[in-house]
């Protein structure tokens, strides 16, 4: 029997395997940021251990960094919060001590860890990648095995460049057909999560398959794989193809010359064999997917924008019903309200889910010639300083500021509000990020997850909307 892509990646990284023990897996690249690493570096020091492969370790500052500083930036003076500043300074000290490449705030390469890996060409097909961050699944878009880990595992990888892991099962998500115009990768993944629930991918390495994913750009594929964790999957991946190779060619860390040819030849083998079997399969119909938004407090609580807030009484499972009741109470929503009638105070475009150049282009395309509604604050935060520079080269920043949106420096920003970009209690946002958990974007804040297209249309109208609504009005 043939093998799935995930099985090939797993077996290609087996350092050691023995009956009754977890497999020991080699890690090709370890991404590090300030939040989940300080205790790991401390652990190394306490045990008198070093970093085995600083050359396979890359650090950036993203979660705590403010987005409203001006360049050139020297030091950490723009961080007003003492605890945030300490965390950033701790990372700088640790990287200096352990010889690790770090892209600090203000650096031309700085950005969200999952945006800078691909843009540097560090994310490549066939690799294993980890980071103390659950959205590491993003890198699976290149046909890599990439997943988030906890701080104990961060320390383990720093010390050994390996991880002991139980082999997950495999699952295919199959979506064939054509997406309707205006339906994006974000809508696709939100529809998948609504169908499977937040635990549907539990214990699986998921491969997204079918013509819908084959036709996506690399950035769209990253949006899909990014949210794999939101339905519980251990990893999400898409087999590499010409789209992948074209994206990689010429990037700083991509192979070149004879190495490029050898790499491409190998990358072509990274496909699920025709006779391979998955442990589970999920199928969706592309034609049935429309712009999708969340109404609740987990990413599985979503519905088509054309729909209404559901009635908790309609849920069969008691735990689902209670969860929906609590969500509506927290979100301040009534069952039966059309989703398009929900007014928002803030629109956030950015994050490792939708903070890349294509997302900004899509946002600008909708905003062009319009104004952000008076009642709405719109924050646009590029995923990296390179994305920011590219957007400015294309004049997108001008479109944003002309429309009345705020254009910021790169970072995680309002996705999780560890920096000053937060919602006030009771404030409601339409956000292109990945989590609508209670308080995620600020204490008491209410989040609706949306695509960049819906975000932009919502900013203009002041209520949840898609670009199609603008044409009609």
């Amino acid at each position, binding site marked *: 029997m043939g093998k799935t892509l995930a099985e090939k990646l797993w077996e290609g990284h087996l350092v*050691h395997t023995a009956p*009754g*023990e*977890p497999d*020991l897996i*080699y890690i*090709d690249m370890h991404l590090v940021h300030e*939040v*989940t690493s300080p*205790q790991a570096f401390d652990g190394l020091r306490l045990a008198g251990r070093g970093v*085995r492969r600083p*050359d396979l*370790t*890359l650090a950036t500052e993203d979660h*705590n960094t403010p987005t409203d500083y001006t360049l050139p930036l020297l030091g950490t003076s723009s961080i007003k*919060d003492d605890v945030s500043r*300490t*965390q950033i300074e701790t990372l700088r000290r640790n990287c200096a001590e352990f*010889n*690790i*490449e770090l892209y600090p705030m203000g650096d031309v390469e700085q950005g969200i860890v999952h945006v800078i890996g691909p843009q540097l*060409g560090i994310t*490549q097909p066939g*690799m294993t990648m980890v980071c*103390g*961050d*659950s959205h590491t699944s993003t890198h699976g878009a290149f046909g890599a095995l990439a997943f*988030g*880990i*906890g701080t*104990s*595992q961060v320390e*383990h990888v720093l*010390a*050994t*460049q*390996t991880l002991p892991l*139980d082999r997950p099962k495999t699952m295919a998500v199959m979506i064939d057909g054509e997406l309707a115009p205006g339906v994006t990768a974000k809508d696709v993944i939100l529809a998948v999560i609504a169908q499977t629930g937040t*635990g549907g991918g*539990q214990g699986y390495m998921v491969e997204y398959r079918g013509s819908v994913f084959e036709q996506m750009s690399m950035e769209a594929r990253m949006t899909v794989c990014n949210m794999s*964790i*939101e339905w*519980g999957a251990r990893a999400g991946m898409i087999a590499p193809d010409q789209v992948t190779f074209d994206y990689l060619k010429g990037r700083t860390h*991509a192979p070149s010359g004879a*190495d*490029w040819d*050898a*790499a491409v030849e190998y990358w072509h083998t990274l496909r699920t064999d025709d006779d391979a079997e998955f442990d589970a399969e999920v199928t969706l119909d592309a034609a049935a997917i429309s712009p999708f938004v969340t109404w609740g407090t987990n990413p599985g609580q979503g519905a088509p924008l054309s729909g209404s807030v559901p009635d908790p009484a309609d849920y069969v499972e008691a*735990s689902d019903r*209670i*969860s929906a009741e609590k969500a509506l109470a927290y979100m301040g929503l009534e069952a039966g309200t059309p989703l398009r009638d929900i007014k928002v105070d803030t629109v956030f475009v950015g994050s490792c889910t939708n903070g890349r150049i294509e997302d900004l282009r899509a946002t600008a395309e909708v905003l062009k010639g319009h104004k952000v509604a008076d009642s709405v604050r719109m924050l646009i935060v590029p995923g990296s300083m390179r994305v920011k520079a590219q957007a400015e080269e294309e004049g997108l920043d001008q479109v944003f500021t002309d429309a009345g949106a705020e254009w910021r420096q790169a970072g995680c920003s309002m996705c*999780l*509000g*560890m920096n000053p970009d937060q919602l006030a209690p009771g404030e409601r946002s339409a956000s292109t990020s990945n*989590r609508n*958990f*209670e*308080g*995620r974007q600020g*204490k008491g804040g209410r989040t609706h997850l949306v695509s960049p297209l819906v975000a932009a249309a919502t900013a203009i109208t002041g209520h949840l909307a898609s670009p199609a609504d603008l044409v009609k009005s």
Partner: protein
Amino acid sequence: MDKFTVHTGRAVPLRRSNVDTDQIIPAVYLKRVTRTGFEDALFHAWRANEPGFVLNQDRFAGASVLVAGPDFGTGSSREHAVWALMDYGFRVVISPRFADIFRGNSLKAGLLTVMLAEKIVQRLLDDIEDDPSTEVTIDLIERQVRWTGEVHDFELDDYTRWRLLEGLDDIGLTLRAPEYIDSYEQSRKPWLPALTTR
């Protein structure tokens, strides 16, 4: 890591599903660079805003076992969620289903996460709500959960069980045989990316 063999303690009923790690510990507390002292952060929003929240009820004070609905620990990979639970005094969490990353983190840090069927968890929730003095025993040697009149086996792989029983450090275990890593590194593709170090 402390050894875990058998633990007996009172329990707290957290009758909620999809308890994500943002609820277990909000991001604002992740700015600390220490590994301990997170007890004040545990379930901070619920403790602050809901007077009736189980951890605000005196009758459950001092409990060391948390019993929760399905899909506990979803979302962010923050291991701080495990540290906060342990700092608060929990040694065990029981739920029908845990999110992968949270479960991995818990078993590395020595917080035992036990999966029981949803019906059994419901009974346990009912019993501890009826009588908060109910003592629950989690026996890792026998892989059993026991309380008044109830005995239920749970599953945990032999390797993890052994590691917890012995209180062994994962990194130390891997470094017993560094030659496997040396030998794997010889076979890596030559074009794989590497950073210039300082």
